[in-house]
C-alpha cells in the first residue's frame, strides 16, 4: 500500500485554529491542528460527533478559512488566496464528495459529471474521453441520461464521485461519502475509489464515522475536542487487521465514540 506514497508533500496544515461566534463568546472548535499529507496517501479522519471533523475538512478543502494557522496545498498557501484565485484552484486541483451527494437535480448524470470540466469549452473531445473513462470505472455508463431522482443512493454517490474525479484532481476531499449508503454499496464505492486512487496517484482525505470505511485508508487520524488525539497507519496490514486497530483506538477514545448520524 505504501508503495503509492511518495515523499512529496501534498497537503500541510500548520497549527490550525477555528472558532465560531463573536469574540468573547467564541467557541473554539479546532484548537491547533498540525497535519502533513504526502502525495498518494488516503487519509481518514475519525472522531466523535462534534469533534470538528467537518470543520477541519472544510478548512483543509478551502471551503472555510481558519481563524489562525496556515493551509498549504502543493506548497501553495491557500489560506490567504483571493476568492477568484481560490475558485480556480479548487476547480483545477480539488475534488469533493459529500454525504448527501449534492448533485444538481435538474442535470443528468453525465451533465453533472461533466460540470467541473465544462468551463473551458475548448477541449470537448478531451472531456468526453475523460467522462467515458470515469463512467466506466465507476460502472455508471448506462446512467448517462438519468436524472438524480431516478437513481439509488449508491448510484448517486458514484455520480458524485465521478464529478469529483473527472478532472483528475491532485487532492480529493470526502465528508462521510458512505454515510447514507447501505454497507454493500458503501464497500463497492470505497473499493472503486481506492482502486482509482491507486491508478491515478491521487491523494484522498476522507471523514468517516464508519470504521469499515476508514479501514480502506492508509492512515487514520482521530480527533477529539478539536485536537488530534492519535493516528494509526495501515502499513502492510490487511484491511481486516487495520479495521481491528481502528476499533481499538475508538474504544479508548470514549464511550459514545461511534458517531450517530
Amino acid at each position, binding site marked *: 500500500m505504501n508503495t503509492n506514497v511518495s515523499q512529496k508533500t501534498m497537503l500541510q496544515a500548520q497549527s490550525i485554529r477555528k472558532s465560531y461566534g463573536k469574540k468573547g463568546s467564541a467557541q473554539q472548535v479546532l484548537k491547533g491542528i498540525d497535519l502533513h499529507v504526502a502525495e498518494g496517501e488516503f487519509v481518514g479522519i475519525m472522531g466523535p460527533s462534534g469533534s470538528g471533523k467537518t470543520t477541519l475538512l472544510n478548512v483543509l478543502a478551502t471551503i472555510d478559512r481558519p481563524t489562525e494557522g496556515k493551509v498549504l496545498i502543493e506548497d501553495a498557501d491557500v489560506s490567504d488566496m483571493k476568492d477568484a484565485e481560490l*475558485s480556480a484552484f*479548487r476547480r*483545477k486541483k480539488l475534488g*469533493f464528495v459529500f454525504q448527501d451527494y449534492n448533485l444538481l437535480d*435538474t*442535470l443528468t448524470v453525465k451533465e453533472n459529471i461533466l460540470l*467541473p470540466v*465544462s*468551463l473551458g469549452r475548448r477541449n470537448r473531445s478531451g472531456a468526453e474521453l475523460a467522462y467515458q473513462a470515469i463512467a466506466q470505472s465507476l460502472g455508471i455508463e448506462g446512467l448517462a441520461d438519468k436524472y438524480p431522482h431516478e437513481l439509488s443512493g449508491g448510484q448517486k454517490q458514484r455520480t458524485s464521485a465521478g464529478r469529483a474525479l473527472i478532472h483528475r484532481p491532485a487532492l480529493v476531499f470526502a465528508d462521510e461519502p458512505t454515510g447514507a449508503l447501505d454497507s454493500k454499496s458503501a464497500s463497492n464505492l470505497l473499493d472503486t475509489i481506492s482502486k482509482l486512487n491507486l491508478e491515478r496517484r491521487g491523494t484522498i482525505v476522507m471523514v468517516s464515522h464508519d470504521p469499515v470505511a476508514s479501514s480502506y485508508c492508509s492512515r487514520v487520524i482521530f480527533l477529539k475536542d478539536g485536537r488530534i488525539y492519535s493516528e494509526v497507519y495501515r502499513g502492510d496490514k490487511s484491511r481486516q487487521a487495520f479495521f481491528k486497530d481502528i476499533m481499538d483506538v475508538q474504544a479508548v477514545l470514549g464511550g459514545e465514540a461511534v458517531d450517530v448520524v
Partner: protein
Amino acid sequence: MTLFELVLRSMRKNIKHYYLYFFVFIFCTSLYFVFVTLQHDVSLPDRMDGGSVFSQAFLAAGFLLLLIVSVFTIYANRLFFNRRSREIGLYQLIGLTKRGVVQLLLLENTLLGIGALVAGIVCGALVYRIFLVLISSLLGFDGVVTVHFSLSAMYQTAAVFAVLIVLTSIQMVRMTYRTTLIDLFQAENRHEHPSTPANGPAAVFGLLGIVLILYGYWQSGRISQNTLFIGSLAILGSIIAGTYLLFRVTIGWLFGRIRRAANGHLGLRRALSLAPLMHRMRGQANSLTVITVLSAMTLTMVAAAYSFYYSAGKDTRNALPYDFAIENGESNAAKHFGEELDAKGIRYDHRKVDAIRLTGKICAVPSLSACEETTLLVLPAEQLRQTGADIPVPEPWNAAMYDGNAKLDRLTQDPNADLPKTIEMDLLKSESGNKLQLTDVVNRFAMNYNVYGDQLVVSETTFRALKAGMTALPQYEQEQMKERPDYAAVAFDTFQVPDKPQRKTASEAYAAFVPEGSHPFDYEREYRDKLQSFGLFIFITGFLGLVFLISTGSMLYFKQMTEAEQEKRSFITLRQLGFEKKDILKGIMRKQLFVFTIPLAIGIAHAAFAVKTVSVLVPSSIVVPSATAMGGYVLIYFIFVLLTMGYYKKIVKAAI
C-alpha cells in the same frame, strides 16, 4: 405562547418577507378607491359632455382592476402557503391541531388584509387630489378642482376587498385541510421532478403551439367587419391555446434539442439557465400563460390609448382640414362670421372653394356589374391648393377620392387594391365626357367631413368641364328651385386661424353661425372633444396598465424568490466545485432574462398584432406612440428583473 402572540410573531416575520405583496395590495386598494370615487364624483362629469360615459368608464376600470387583483392575490397566496409549509408543519408537530393552524392562518390573513385595506384607503384618500389634478389636466379642464371625500366609495372599496380577504381565507382553509403533514415537509423539495419528455409528441405539440399563434396572427390581418365578433374570438382562442402550448411544450422541447446536441457538455451557464428553465416552464405553463395574456392585453390597451391620444390632433386634421368651412346658401353666414372674427381682432385666412355635387356610379373596371351609386362632391385641386392644402393635381379626367374613413371601411384591405375604377355621371351627356377614372384613394378628407357627398378631387380644367356640362342641362335652373337639389354647384368658405388661443375664441363664436339644432363641426371643438375622451381612456389604461404590470412582474418575482431558495443548495455545490460567484450569477442572469423576457416578448408580439388590428381606427400612424408605450412598459418591467437579480445575488453571496 398564546395564539395571538404566535400570530403577531409570524406576522412580523412575514411583513418583511412579503413587503412587495403588501405594496401591490395597498397600491391596488388605493387605486380602486380612487376609481370608485371618480366614478361617483359628481363634479367632474358635469364638465364633460356625456357624464355617464365617465362613470361607466371608471366602473369598467374598477372591474378590470378587481379581476387582476384577484388573480394576483390567489396566485401569491398559494405560493406563500407552499413557502411556509415547513413552518405550518412545525406548528402541527408541536401539537397544534389543523383547526388551530387554520385559526392561526385566518387570524393572520384577516389582520394583514384589514391592515392593507385600511392603509390602501388612507393612501387612496391622500393621493386622490393628485389624481384629480392629473385627470383635469389630461382632459383639458381648467379652474380649481374640489375634492369630495366619498364615504360610499370607501364602503364599496372595503366591501369588495373584504370579499377578497374572505376568498383567500377560504383558499387557505382548503389548502390546510387538504395537505398532510408529510406533504408540508416535502413541499419545499417537491418541485417538479425533471424528466425528458417523449420526443415525438413534444415535437407535434410544440409545433402546434407555434402554428396556432401564427394562425392567430395571420387571421388578425384578415379580419373583416362582418366576422368581427366570431373572428376575434377564434383569434383569441387560437393565440391563447398556442401560448399555453408554447410554455407547456414548445420551449421545453426546443431547449431539450439544444441540450441533446450538447450531449452532456452543458457548461455552467446553460446548467443554470437552460436546464432549470426546461423543467420549470412546464409546471408553470398556466401562470405563464396568464401573465403573457395579461401583458399582451395591457400593452394593447396602453398602446392603443396612447396612439389615440397622441394622434388626436392629426386625426382631427384628417377629418377637418379647415378650422371652419361654411357651405353657401347659408344666408351670408360666411360674411358675418368673417366680420365677427375681424371685430374680435382674430387673424384668419379666408378662401373660397368651388365644388359641384351630383350623383354618380363608381364601378370596378373589368365588370360593370359591381357598381356603387353615391352622391359625389367634386372639388378642384388647384383651388384647394390655394388654401394651403397639400393636395396633388390629378391628370385630366382622373380623380382622387379623399376619404378619412377609407381604412376603416375596408378594414384591413388596402383601399387602393382594386383601382383604377370608373366613375360615371349619368346626368352628364357623354360629349362633355361623363366618365372619370378613379386612380387614387387618400385616407383623409379634402373638405371638412361633415359636408355631404363623397369627396373627389380633379384638376381645375376637368372641374370646369364637368360644371359647364351640369349647368348647361336644360332642367338645371328648375332643379335649383328645389329644397334639396339632386345636383348643384356649391361653394365653401374656408377659414384657417393660425393662432391657437385665437382659434379657441373663434370656435366659441362659430357656434352662433351654425343653423339651429345642428352640431358645429369645427376643428378646435372636435379636437378638444377627442382629447377629452382619449384623455380619460389614457388615464384609465395608464393606471390599469401599471397595476397589471406590477402584478405580473410581482408574480414572476415571487416565483423566482421561491426558486432561488430551492436552488441555494446547488449554489453551494457550485462554489465548492470551484465556480466563482460572478460566473454563477451570469448563469442566473441568463435564466432571469429568459424567465422575464419570454412572457414579455410573446406578450409584445401578441400586442403588436392586436394593435395593428385596432390601428384601422386611427388614421394616422401608430408606430411612434405604440413603440413609446411599449418601451415604457419594458423599462418598468425590467425593474423586476433587477429586483430578482438582487435577491439571487444575496443568496449566492451567502453560499460561501
